[in-house]
C-alpha cells in the first residue's frame, strides 16, 4: 500500500518534471505564436514578458504588405512535387534492390548509401552552375530536379520492401501473375503505410528546406516561405511582429501535419536509425 503510493508519487514527479522541461524546450515556439498576436501599435511590446494586448495587426500586415499567399503556394508546390517525385523514383529503385538479385546490386546500393554521407553543400556550386545554364533559376524545377533521386527514400523503402514475404510472391506466380501483376497486386497495396510515413517526413523536410532554395530562388515571386521570411526580415521590410505572424503561419501547416500523423511519422523517422 505504502509502496504503491510512493510509486505513484514518483510517477507524478517525473511527469511534472517533463511538463516543465517541455515548456522550457517549446518556449521559443510558444513565444513566437503568442507574440504574433501582439499589438504593433504599442511601443516596446516586444520588450515585455507578455504582449500587452492581443491583436491581429501582425497578420493583417503580412497579408497587406507581402505576397504571402504566393510564397505559401510556392512552398506547397515545391514540397509536394518534390516529395511525389522522390517517392516515385525511390520506390522503383528500392523495388529493384529489394526484389531482384542482379550483378552490381550491392555495389549500387553502397553507392546510394554513399550519396547520403557526402555533404550536399559541397556540391551546390556546380549544381547551381548547372541549374543556371538550364535556365531553371527562380523556378520550382530548379529547386526540385537536382534532388529527385533521394538516398533516404531509396534506403527507407528498400528496408520495408525486403520484409515482404517471398511466399506471397511465389503464390501469386502460381496463380499466373506476371511481373507487373506482382508489383501491382502484391507490393503496392502493402506499401501504402510506409510510403505515407515516408512522404510526410519528406514533405516536412522540403517545406523547411533552406540552403538550396536560397541559392536558386532570388526573385520575390518565386520564393518559398523560409527564404522569403529571412530575406524580408533582414531587409527590414517586415517588422518583427509581422515576421512572427508569418513565421507562425509558415510553421502551422507542418505542425498540423506532424500532429495528425505523429505515430507513423515518429516510427518512420526512428526506423531510419534502428534497422540500418
Amino acid at each position, binding site marked *: 500500500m505504502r509502496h504503491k503510493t510512493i510509486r505513484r508519487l514518483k510517477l507524478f514527479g517525473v*511527469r511534472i518534471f517533463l511538463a516543465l522541461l*517541455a515548456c522550457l*524546450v517549446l518556449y521559443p515556439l510558444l513565444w513566437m505564436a503568442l507574440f504574433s498576436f501582439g499589438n504593433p501599435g504599442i511601443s516596446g511590446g516586444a520588450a515585455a514578458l507578455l504582449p500587452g494586448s492581443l491583436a491581429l495587426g501582425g497578420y493583417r500586415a503580412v497579408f497587406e504588405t507581402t505576397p504571402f499567399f504566393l510564397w505559401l503556394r510556392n512552398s506547397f508546390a515545391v514540397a509536394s512535387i518534390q516529395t511525389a517525385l522522390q517517392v516515385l523514383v*525511390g520506390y*522503383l529503385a528500392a523495388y529493384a534492390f529489394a526484389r*531482384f538479385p542482379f550483378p552490381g546490386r550491392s555495389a549500387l546500393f553502397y553507392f546510394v548509401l554513399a550519396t547520403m554521407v557526402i555533404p550536399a553543400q559541397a556540391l551546390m556550386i556546380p549544381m547551381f552552375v548547372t541549374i543556371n545554364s538550364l535556365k531553371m533559376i527562380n523556378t520550382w524545377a530548379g529547386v526540385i530536379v537536382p534532388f529527385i533521386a533521394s538516398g533516404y527514400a531509396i534506403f527507407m523503402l528498400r528496408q520495408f520492401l525486403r520484409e515482404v514475404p517471398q511466399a506471397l510472391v511465389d503464390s501469386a506466380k502460381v496463380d499466373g501473375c506476371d511481373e507487373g501483376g506482382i508489383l501491382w497486386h502484391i507490393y503496392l497495396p502493402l506499401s501504402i503505410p510506409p510510403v505515407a510515413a515516408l512522404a510526410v517526413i519528406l514533405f516536412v523536410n522540403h517545406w523547411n528546406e533552406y540552403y538550396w532554395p536560397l541559392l536558386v530562388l532570388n526573385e520575390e515571386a518565386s520564393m518559398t516561405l523560409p527564404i522569403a521570411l529571412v530575406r524580408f526580415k533582414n531587409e527590414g521590410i517586415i517588422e518583427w511582429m509581422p515576421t512572427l505572424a508569418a513565421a507562425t503561419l509558415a510553421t502551422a501547416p507542418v*505542425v498540423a501535419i506532424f500532429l495528425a500523423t505523429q505515430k507513423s511519422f515518429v516510427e518512420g523517422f526512428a526506423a531510419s536509425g534502428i534497422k540500418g
Partner: protein
Amino acid sequence: MRRPSSLPYLFLFPALALYAAFFIAPLFFAGSLSFSQWNLISPKKEFVGLDNYAALFEDPVFWISLRNTVVYAVATVFPSMAGALVLAAVIERSGKRARAVFRTLFFLPVIASLAVTGLVWAMLLNPVGGHFNIILGMLGIRGPNWLNDPFWAMASLVMVGVWRGVSYNLILYIAGIQGIDSQYYEAARIDGAGATGQFFHITVPLLSHVSLFVLVVSVIQSFQVFATVNIMTKGGPNNATNVLVYQVYQEAFQFFDIGRSSAAAVVMLVLVLAVAIAQIRMIESSESSMAR
C-alpha cells in the same frame, strides 16, 4: 528459374540517371572548378592549378572557420546525445500515455524550420528587449550581447544546435529503448539496481549501436551547419562563427570567387568523408567484437 534480367536495371534507371547528372557530374565539376579561376559570370574559366588551394591554406579565415566547425561539432554533438539519452530514459518512465504525449512535444523543435527557428532565437537573444536578457535581468544577471560577442555568438549557435539535436536524437533513442527486452530491467530490479543503476548498466550499454549511428549522423549534420549561421550571425562577429559551409557560400555568392569556394568545398567534402568513414569503421569493428 528464369528472370527477365534487364528488369531491375529498368527500375533503377531513373534514379541512376538523376544521380549521374546531379551527383556524379557535380562531384567532378566541383573538382575541376577548384583548379580554375572564375567569377560565375565571365564566359571563360582559367586553369590555375593548385593556386586556389594554396590561397585557401594561407587564408587565416579558412583556419578560423575550420576550427569553428570542429568547435561547433564537438560542443553540439555530445550534449545533444547525452541530453537525448537521459531524456529518453526519463520519458520511458513516465507511463504509457504520458510517454506518447512527451515524445510528440519534444519532437516539435525538429518540425519547425531552421529559418523560423533562427529568426525566433535571434529575437529572443536580442540584447534590447529579448526575453533572454529580460529574464536574466530579473535574476539579477546582466546578460551578454549574445550574437555580437565572439564567445557568446558561438555559444548561441551551439545552444540552438543542442536544442534541435536533442529533439532529433531523442526519437532514435526512445525507439532504441523500446527495443530492449524488459527482462533485463526486471533482472536488474531483483538485483537491487535503482533507476540510475539501470540507466548506466542496461540502457546505455544496450543502446551503444544506436549511439554510434546517432554519432555518425550528428557529426555529418553538424559539419554542415548553415541556416542558423546565415540567419543569426552571418559568420560574425569578426568570423567568430564562420564555419566551412558558410565560407564556401560566402566565397561563391558574396565574393564570386568560384575557384576558392570550390577548393573549400572539396576540403569540406574530404573532411566529412574521412570522419564518416572513420566512424563507420568504428561501428563495424565494435559490431564484430560484439559478435565474437
